[in-house]
């Protein structure tokens, strides 16, 4: 277990925080850490910056993230990693497509490689890490395009050479279902699943025998297309199969 000092913690919106910390670990864009609240749980979290200093950006949705949000500069965080593969280096015209907290993982790439950013959220109050030049979609139309980030992005796919996508599984699934599978762009997805170990041995995050934590988290389109369980079913903490709402079985 590693530990590091918190440099700063900033509230990005009503429930999203960015915590910057002082660590010597070397990480690549797209990698994640397993962050631990001593005496509490350990959860996977994407690095939102992999250049010095490192950062994580998270939504408070449970006890662990709520505790992390109360940390102050000088406090310690505990973690192991970094784990997982990283986004490949792009060439040509680049697009980033983020939904939910997906923009946190993509941010580590956006900091390194210029590109057009498509960001989606339910309302303008749910957006975070947004800059003026980003193309924004909100479900209620409170900012930018009214609709999903998938609706906003799909018509533009042909303009790009590299596309990086991160978001909740149903969003990623709907994007995959709607794009031209023969598009010239190389499309990469950072996937999210329940993870317990983070190092490829517990099998909690596996999709058709492919481990999100160790074989991914980043996969190219063709790899995701082979995962027949993707967007259809996932595992609960017991290992039981659970179907996504609205999934075609």
């Amino acid at each position, binding site marked *: 277990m590693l*530990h590091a000092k918190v440099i700063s913690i900033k509230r990005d919106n009503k429930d999203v925080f960015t915590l910057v910390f002082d660590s010597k670990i070397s990480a690549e864009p797209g990698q994640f850490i397993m962050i631990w609240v001593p*005496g509490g749980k350990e*959860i996977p979290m994407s690095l939102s910056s992999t250049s010095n200093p490192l950062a994580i950006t998270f939504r408070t949705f449970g006890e662990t993230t709520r505790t992390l949000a109360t940390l102050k500069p000088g406090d*310690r965080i*505990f973690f192991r990693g970094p784990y997982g593969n990283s986004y490949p280096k792009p060439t040509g015209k680049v697009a980033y497509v983020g939904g939910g907290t997906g923009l946190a993982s993509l941010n580590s790439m956006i900091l390194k490689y210029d590109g057009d950013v498509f960001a989606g959220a339910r309302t303008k109050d749910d957006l975070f890490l947004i800059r003026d030049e980003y193309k924004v979609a909100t479900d209620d139309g409170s900012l930018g395009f009214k609709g999903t980030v998938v609706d906003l992005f799909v018509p533009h796919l042909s303009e790009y050479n590299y596309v990086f996508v991160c978001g909740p599984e149903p969003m990623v699934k709907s994007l995959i279902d709607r794009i031209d599978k023969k598009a010239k762009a190389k499309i990469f997805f950072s996937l999210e699943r329940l993870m*317990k170990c983070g190092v490829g*041995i517990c*099998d909690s995050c*596996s999709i058709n025998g492919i481990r999100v934590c160790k074989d991914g988290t980043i996969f190219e389109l063709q790899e995701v297309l082979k995962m027949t369980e993707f967007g259809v079913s996932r595992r609960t903490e017991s290992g*039981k199969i659970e179907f996504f709402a609205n999934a075609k079985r």
Partner: protein
Amino acid sequence: MASISTKVGNFSIENPVILASGILDETSGSILRSLRSGAGAVVTKSIGISERAGYPTPVISEVKTGLLNAVGLPNPGIDNFVEEYKDFPEKKRTVVSIFGGSVEEFVTLSRRVEAAGFDKVELNLSCPHVQGVGSEVGQDVDLVEEIINEIKRRTNLQIWSKLTPNVTDIVSLAKASEKADALVLINTIRAIGVEIYSRKFALSNVVGGYSGPGIKPVALRAVYDVYKETGKDIVGVGGITTWEDAIEFFLLGARAIQVGTAFLYDDYRIYSDIKDGINKYLDSEGFSKLEDIVGVMVNNAARKGD
């Protein structure tokens, strides 16, 4: 090239490298991946009567000489397990690990497993960190004997009895497993991890099981003692991460071996790495088949009768 096929009980296996219970075997997709990556057989994560979420994270903690875990027997329960494996194509190469708190639970699970088309069970008599099951059951010599005898009486399953090393005398447990087709030695060793800067325990359950390279000498001792005293078919497990480790177990009497924590160091390459190494060793040492080295360092009653 030498033959590395082996036989455990009446189960003939193309090669002796088996996936241990608890690692990458919660989903049927990963079990197939292991078999396609070269495992001779696989053992599933332990299945109980009802669904269990397991313990909260952290459930693993790496140490210099291996791994601590207290995952807490997460499993979907026998009903969901049977449903998931309805059309599974590799039932004969898959050993279903089961755990229970009583003879009746073990028998019920065994009958369900048999009805689902499998023909082998591994009895988890040794999970070191869940109350009321695993090694709490597995430390009771009479109970172990009764569980095995009852499953034998009421099913046609091959039984592998996986024993706990957390006892003073593992040989008496092995003798209580006389009617089992094979013994699996050893499960993890009860252990604790400490994080000194937070002054907290490394695992949410405090106590977990220790696996990996550090426990190999302990496992070798258990295999040696049990093979010497009983001559039974043994599947060796505990700290095997290289082909040399595997050879050590064969020399002391194991007919096959299991790997788990080795995935941390070698991932899915572990199967071909160990198989290739065994093959080269047998060739270079002048043995024509794996069986020729099984137990050669141990003089026991079974061998004396050869």
